[in-house]
């Protein structure tokens, strides 16, 4: 048994993304949820499964009460940070395939502007207990600092340069400028990136993602049911979620140049029955520029160490060989935990990408990257 072709993302929803929203995280996730449910042509009372994105989501009980769900039959929590959306999609598809439920809502919403920055928030999470005890006190505090040694090691082993990381930031910004719901829309050049202030060497300001407020959600049904619903059908072909060695301490990871998706990629591609060359559009989790480069290598789009050349020369841009982060990503659209990557992939495969539509996009993938390298991907296709 496989999940290939079993499930579809039938509805997607996003709120306005902002630097600082006056709305609570709870309101933002319900707004996105209602949009996604309506987008599918469903009613809230049709929802019988919910997988709230763990680190920001309300518990399933809140969905029963606020959406008036009469018959919630399935709920789960996927506690893997920015990989949670991909994990939730896989979990929803498995639950539907097993007959446990029929329509699963995956909601997220965050209002981080009203609270503490990521460098403070992560230390409240159990996954970070080693970092909190052994690293935070010496000044290894924020994600930028925890991930920087991975990028520096990659540069040391393979000669990757900051200007190559800039290619990712610049391409992603150009895409955000075609998205009416992107926060960062000022033009960016390689020179702008190179002149941006150093945050955690080798990461400059423009290597780092945003901190944003907003909500994003999607609804998963069986592929069969999706054919009777409102939108063009976008099927899940394959997915996998894996973990790097030493997932709770990057310091103790023997090889820092791979993350969890290195283990997941072959599993997902084999399930999907497609190859790397079949991918028309890629929405790759981009908490930092280098994390995009590393995942592209780990997924086998190029060999380990060649990522710097691979991301250069316009390959990731619209019209390039592998249009990537067509929405502007976490770097320039909004940090919505990669939920916005899944929403954008569905939008592209429906052909609803507006000014940033990848021509004839039929097969694509979205990835997630959680905490210290948990990694997953979902390969999806427009049903024919």
């Amino acid at each position, binding site marked *: 048994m496989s999940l290939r072709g079993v499930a579809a993302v039938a509805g997607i929803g996003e709120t306005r993304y902002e630097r600082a929203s006056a709305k609570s995280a709870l309101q933002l996730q319900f707004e996105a949820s209602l949009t996604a449910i309506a987008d599918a042509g469903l009613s809230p009372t049709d929802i019988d499964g919910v997988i709230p994105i763990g680190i920001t989501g309300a518990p399933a009980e809140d969905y029963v009460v606020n959406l008036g769900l009469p018959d919630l039959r399935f709920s789960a929590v996927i506690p893997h940070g920015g990989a949670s959306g991909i994990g939730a999609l896989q979990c929803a598809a498995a639950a539907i395939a097993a007959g446990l439920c029929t329509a699963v809502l995956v909601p997220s919403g965050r209002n981080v502007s009203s609270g503490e*920055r990521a*460098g*403070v928030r992560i230390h409240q999470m159990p996954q970070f207990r*080693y970092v*909190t*005890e*052994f*690293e*935070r*006190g*010496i*000044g*290894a*505090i*924020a994600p*930028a*600092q925890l991930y*920087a*040694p*991975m990028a*520096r*090691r990659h540069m*040391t082993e393979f000669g990757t340069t900051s200007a190559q990381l800039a290619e990712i930031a610049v391409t992603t910004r150009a895409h955000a400028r075609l998205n009416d719901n992107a926060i960062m829309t000022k033009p960016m050049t390689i020179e702008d990136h190179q002149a941006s*202030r*150093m*945050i*955690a*060497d*080798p990461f400059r300001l423009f290597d780092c993602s945003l901190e944003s407020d907003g909500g994003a959600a999607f609804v998963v049904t069986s592929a069969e049911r999706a054919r009777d619903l409102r939108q063009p059908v976008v099927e899940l072909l394959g997915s996998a979620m894996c973990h790097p060695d030493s997932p709770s*301490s990057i*310091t*103790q990871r023997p090889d*820092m140049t791979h993350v969890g998706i290195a283990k997941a990629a072959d599993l997902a591609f084999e399930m999907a029955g497609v190859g790397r060359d079949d991918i028309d559009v890629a929405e790759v989790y981009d908490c930092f520029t280098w994390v995009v480069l590393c995942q592209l290598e780990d997924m086998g789009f190029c060999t380990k160490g060649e990522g710097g050349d691979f991301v250069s020369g316009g390959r990731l841009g619209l019209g390039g060989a592998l249009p990537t982060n067509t929405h502007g990503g976490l770097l320039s659209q909004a940090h919505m935990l990669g939920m916005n990557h899944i929403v954008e992939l569905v939008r592209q495969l429906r052909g609803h990408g507006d000014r940033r539509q990848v021509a004839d996009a039929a097969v694509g993938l979205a990835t997630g990257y959680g905490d210290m390298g948990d990694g997953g991907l979902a390969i999806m296709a427009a049903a024919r």
Partner: protein
Amino acid sequence: MNDAVSEAYWAGAARNEFVVQRCDSCGTVRHYPRILCSTCYSFDWSPAPAAPTGTVYSWTVAHHVFDPTVTTEVPYTLVTVDMNVGVRVIGRFDSDVAPTAGQAVVLEFRDALEFRDADAPTPVFTPAPA
């Protein structure tokens, strides 16, 4: 914030000694401290003083004040070091010259950072004497 399994590490650090865990059953050395040996699944272990020497695997330089309750003094360099005993340690790097991959370094524990919200010793690496 220190639980029983990491007490020996912190007590050693307070004496300027690098202490790791050694499995009583199979002898495998591990760090950061945890309750179970992932090689032989024994819960039994003993603290083992280890050589404070190693080589630089990677590094980063903080230029941004991420949390003023930890420190406001930037920039500072953090090095990730392959210790000769077979585990990694991340620590401050005290040198006028930037680190390089493979550089030999020595670990010592110094007084806690001024702004730190705990009083634990700080691991600091310096270039090994030529």
